[in-house]
């Protein structure tokens, strides 16, 4: 009997903790909602990668409106992104150069260039997306290198990993 009571009490406590957590997260969402209705500012999205796997690490909403990063070297190795609203309308898209690919700098000695300046590949790391904020931005889709262009060339819908940005949204004032 004692054991059953203890079990029930533990269950009640767990339920209470879960409800509190859910309430708190709901409140944080409520707080974030007014931010999401602002059609200005900038989203800074930090993404971790491990191989072809992505996870969103943080999202900051800056009050200052800044341009999106320019990808000066578009290539098949790029990571493509799309940001959509709740109705699946595309609000932003672009690409970032593959953060896994690194190059050594040129050798000081001009006739001794070597393979160090050609590319090496990292297995894990982070990258940033910077996007001028648009009202309703909510879902981020990331496509691994080659996936976007491959799908388009075959006339297929692009597949990738999708993330709901809402739980990550936090206000951040400009430094």
């Amino acid at each position, binding site marked *: 009997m004692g054991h059953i009571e203890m079990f029930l009490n533990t269950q009640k406590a767990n339920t209470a903790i879960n409800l*509190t957590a859910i*309430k*708190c997260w709901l*409140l*944080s969402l*409520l*707080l974030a909602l*007014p931010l999401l209705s602002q059609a200005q500012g*900038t989203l*800074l999205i*930090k993404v971790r990668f491990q191989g072809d796997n992505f996870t969103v690490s*943080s999202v*900051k909403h*800056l009050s*200052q*409106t*800044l*341009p999106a*990063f*320019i990808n*000066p*070297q*578009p*290539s098949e190795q790029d990571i493509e992104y799309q940001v959509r609203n709740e109705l699946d309308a595309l609000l932003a898209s672009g690409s*970032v*150069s*593959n*953060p*896994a*690919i*690194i*190059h*050594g*700098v*040129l*050798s*000081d000695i*001009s006739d001794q*260039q*070597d*393979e*160090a*300046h*050609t590319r*090496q590949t*990292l297995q894990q*790391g*982070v*990258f*940033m997306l*910077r996007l001028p904020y648009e009202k309703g931005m909510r879902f981020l889709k990331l496509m691994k290198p080659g996936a976007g262009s491959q799908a388009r060339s075959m006339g297929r819908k692009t597949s990738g990993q999708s993330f709901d940005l809402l739980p990550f949204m936090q206000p951040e004032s*400009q*430094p």
Partner: protein
Amino acid sequence: MKYPALKDYFLTSLLLLSACHFPGLDEHDSNVENRQHSHELTSNTAHTLKGRADGKGFDLVFVADGFTEEEMPQFFQAVQNYRSFSEQYEPVFNLQKDAWNIHLIQIPSQDSGVDEPKSGLFKDTVFDSSFECEWVDRIICVDQEKVLDVVSDHFPQYDAILVLANSSRSGGASLGNNIITSAMSKNLNQTIIHELGHALANLGDEYTYGGLDLPTREPSNPNLTLNEFAYNVKWGHWLDLNLGQASIGVFEGGHYLEYGVWRPTNNSVMRTLGQPFHAVNLEAWSLALYRHTGTYLNSVPDSGALQQNEDGQTFEIELTLGEEVQSIEWRIDDELVTPLATNRLFVPAQNQDYIVQASISDSSQVIRKDNNKFSQDTLTWWVSVQ
């Protein structure tokens, strides 16, 4: 939602939220604290050396690593040296200097120097710079997440980040996220220029060592091609330039390959450190700068429809790079007119509506072809008299 209601909404939400415990957020905070370690961020550790903070222009952030507090003047001097060096590297660079915003992050490290694992040297530095990254002696890696966190906190408008690692040993890398690392070697300035050739202007390497596979499609770089035929090569609009070493042609070798890829000059900064850019690379560099800066900062009045002033109307444009490299053609009702100054036109009071147009273009002679119109703009004002 009216303002009082909005205020109540926020206050209530904040009160309720303050009672919440967010394990994830607390964890994040403590991580940040741990990462900052003993390296305190103070107001004088991050500042702008020159330029603007609104994201217009190319924002280059220099980050010190492996410099102790006493050594920090060496870092500052290195940045100053680069600034002077880059403004003189090509004659036009001095005229384009307003396109560059230079920022500094100077957090003193506990130890002086950089990790050199093969020699068993490990240093406690703010961003964990290390040689021999990916088992290549010359490559310097850093903790990219730390770098991104600190830079985006202070200069979220960054376009490229240059981590200067405190070592006289030669090395560095072009990492993802437009992070470039470099040791404080004798060729530091030339190295930065070369790496910015990649990061800013999408210039490809023009040297021929190390490559194995021919690209399967035409490179996107403006200075590399699989097309050996001069009559339709992508830099064909420069082929009439015949100036000795600076002559533009179709030279075999580039993209690490001896054969099958062609470059526009015999030798350039993208092939050997310290060499000039030459016309094709310089055009790409200049267009890329315009892509970041735009052609003008603002106009007074804003372009669009407006009512004529009783005393006439002055139109003024603030150019991004200035009158030495940019020109404006002013037109009233399609007729070319001569303004008071390059960037200012006065139109006396008129009896009927009129249209003013200002066409901005680059006049430095380094741009011959601008398919994307990065260096050009036309502003129009429709002025009504009534």
